[in-house]
C-alpha cells in the first residue's frame, strides 16, 4: 500500500544517486524479508517540485523512495502516530537532525529501538536556499542508524551564526523583546501546527487541552497566544533538537526557532547538554549536580 497517489508519483524518478539506489535496495530487502512492516521515507510530492512522506509496504514500490535537498520534513514525527506504532517494526529514513529526534524518543521511552530500522542518510543540508538549521548542523552523519547511506562527513557544527538571532534579541531591551514577540504572537491562530509537527511533542493529551484546570487559555487572544507559545517552548527545553519543523509548519511564520534556540543555548551554557546526541544522557531538567547554586537566587 502507499499513499495511493500513483496518478502523480507512481514511477521512479529519472536519475538517482547511488545512495538512493542503495536505500531502495535495502528497503526492498527489508520489506521482502518481512523484517519490517513498513518503510517510511520521502517520495515525490503532489505539488510539482515538493516532496512528501510516503509509507511503503509493497517491495515493488521502493523505487518511489527519493532523497535530495528537498527532503526537509522530519519523518521521526510519524513515530508518535498511533497508526504507525500499531504497525510494529518499521524502517524510517532519517537525516541527522531527524535521528536526534529519534534519540530523544528512545530516551523518553516513546519508541522502542527493537521496533525501528533506522535508514540514516548522510546529509549536507536541505532546502534551497539551505535551511538555517543546516548552517550549524551537529549531525551531518546521523548519531544513530542501522544502515548508513553516503560517506560519513564531519558535522558543520555550531558557529557564530548559530545563535546570531538569539544574540540579536538579547541585545534588545526587555521592552523591545516584549514588543517583538507581541507582534509575532498576534498572528498566532492557535492551529497547533507547531505542536503537531514536532517529533518531540509526544503527549497524547497536551497540557493546553487539559481543562481542569485550564492553565493555558485556549483562546487565540494575545494572552492565550503568549501563554501557549511560552509553554510550548518550555516543554521542549532540553529536548528540542532544532529540526525547526515547528517554524516551517507555522502558517503565519512565527519565528519559533528563536525561542527554541534561546533555550537550546541556555541549556547548553548552563549544563553542557545537547538533546538527542545519544539516547542515554538524562535530560537536564530531570537531573542535577550536588552543590549547584545559582546567583539569581538570594
Amino acid at each position: 500500500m502507499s499513499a495511493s497517489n500513483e496518478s502523480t508519483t507512481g514511477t521512479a524518478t529519472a536519475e538517482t544517486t547511488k545512495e538512493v539506489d542503495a536505500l531502495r535496495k535495502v528497503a526492498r530487502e527489508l520489506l521482502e524479508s518481512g523484517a519490517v512492516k513498513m518503510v517510511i521515507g520521502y517520495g515525490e510530492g503532489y505539488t510539482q517540485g515538493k516532496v512528501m512522506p510516503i509509507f511503503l509496504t509493497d517491495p515493488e514500490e521502493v523505487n518511489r523512495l527519493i532523497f535530495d535537498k528537498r527532503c526537509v520534513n522530519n519523518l521521526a514525527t510519524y513515530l508518535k502516530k498511533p497508526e504507525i506504532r500499531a504497525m510494529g517494526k518499521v524502517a524510517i529514513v532519517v537525516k541527522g537532525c531527524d535521528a536526534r529526534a529519534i534519540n530523544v524518543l528512545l530516551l523518553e521511552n516513546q519508541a522502542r529501538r527493537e521496533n525501528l530500522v533506522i535508514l540514516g542518510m548522510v546529509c549536507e543540508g536541505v532546502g534551497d536556499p539551505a535551511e538555517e538549521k543546516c548552517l550549524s548542523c551537529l549531525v551531518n552523519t546521523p548519531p544513530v542508524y542501522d544502515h548508513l547511506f553516503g560517506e560519513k562527513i564531519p558535522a558543520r557544527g555550531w558557529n557564530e551564526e548559530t545563535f546570531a538571532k538569539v544574540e540579536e534579541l538579547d541585545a534588545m531591551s526587555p521592552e523591545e523583546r516584549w514588543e517583538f514577540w507581541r507582534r509575532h504572537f498576534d498572528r498566532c491562530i492557535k492551529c497547533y501546527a507547531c505542536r503537531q509537527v514536532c517529533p518531540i511533542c509526544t503527549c497524547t493529551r497536551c497540557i493546553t487541552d487539559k481543562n481542569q484546570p485550564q492553565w493555558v487559555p485556549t483562546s487565540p487572544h494575545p494572552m492565550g497566544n503568549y501563554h501557549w507559545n511560552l509553554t510550548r517552548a518550555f516543554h521542549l527545553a532540553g529536548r528540542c533538537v532544532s529540526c525547526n519543523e515547528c517554524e516551517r509548519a507555522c502558517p503565519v511564520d512565527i519565528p519559533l526557532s528563536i525561542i527554541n534556540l534561546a533555550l537550546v543555548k541556555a541549556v547548553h551554557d548552563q549544563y553542557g547538554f545537547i538533546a538527542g546526541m545519544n539516547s542515554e544522557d538524562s535530560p537536564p531538567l530531570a537531573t542535577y549536580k550536588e552543590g549547584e547554586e545559582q546567583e539569581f537566587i538570594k
Partner: protein
Amino acid sequence: MAEFHPKIYAFLCNWCTYAGADLAGTSRMLYPADFRVIKVPCTGRIDPEFIVKAFEQGADGIWVSGCHIGDCHYNTGNYYAQRRWTIFRHELDCLGIDLRRLKFTWISAAEGRKFADEAKEFVNRIRDLGPYERFHEIIPAEPELALKTGGGN
C-alpha cells in the same frame, strides 16, 4: 506611587520559608502587606504554569522561596526547582518579561529576619516599578468594562 499597592504572589515551601514566615510573625517583625502566600510542599512542586497564571491574574510581582540548597526536606526537590527556574528565567527574559518582577530566595525556617527583609525589599522594589502594565495589556479586558459599553440585544 506611594499609594500604589502592588499585587504580589508568594509561593513558599512548607518546610523552610513558610516556617520562616511564621517565625517572622511570632517574632513580630514588621514588613509590608502587599503579597499573598500560597503554600506548596516543596519548591520542586512549583510548575512554571503557576507563575504564568499568576501574571495572567494581574500580578505585579511573583516571589518564590524554599529551603537552602542541600537542606531540602525532600533532599533534592529544590535542586530540580533551581534548574527549572534557571531555564525558565532565560525563556521569560527572551520573551520580554521584566525579570525584576520575579524574585527567588532560599529562606530557612530559622531565618525569620531574612524573610521580613526580603519581603520589604521585594514589595518596595515592585512599588517602585509600579503596575506591570506591559503584561496587563494582554490580559482580556475585565467584563465590567465590556458591560459598560455593552448595549446587548
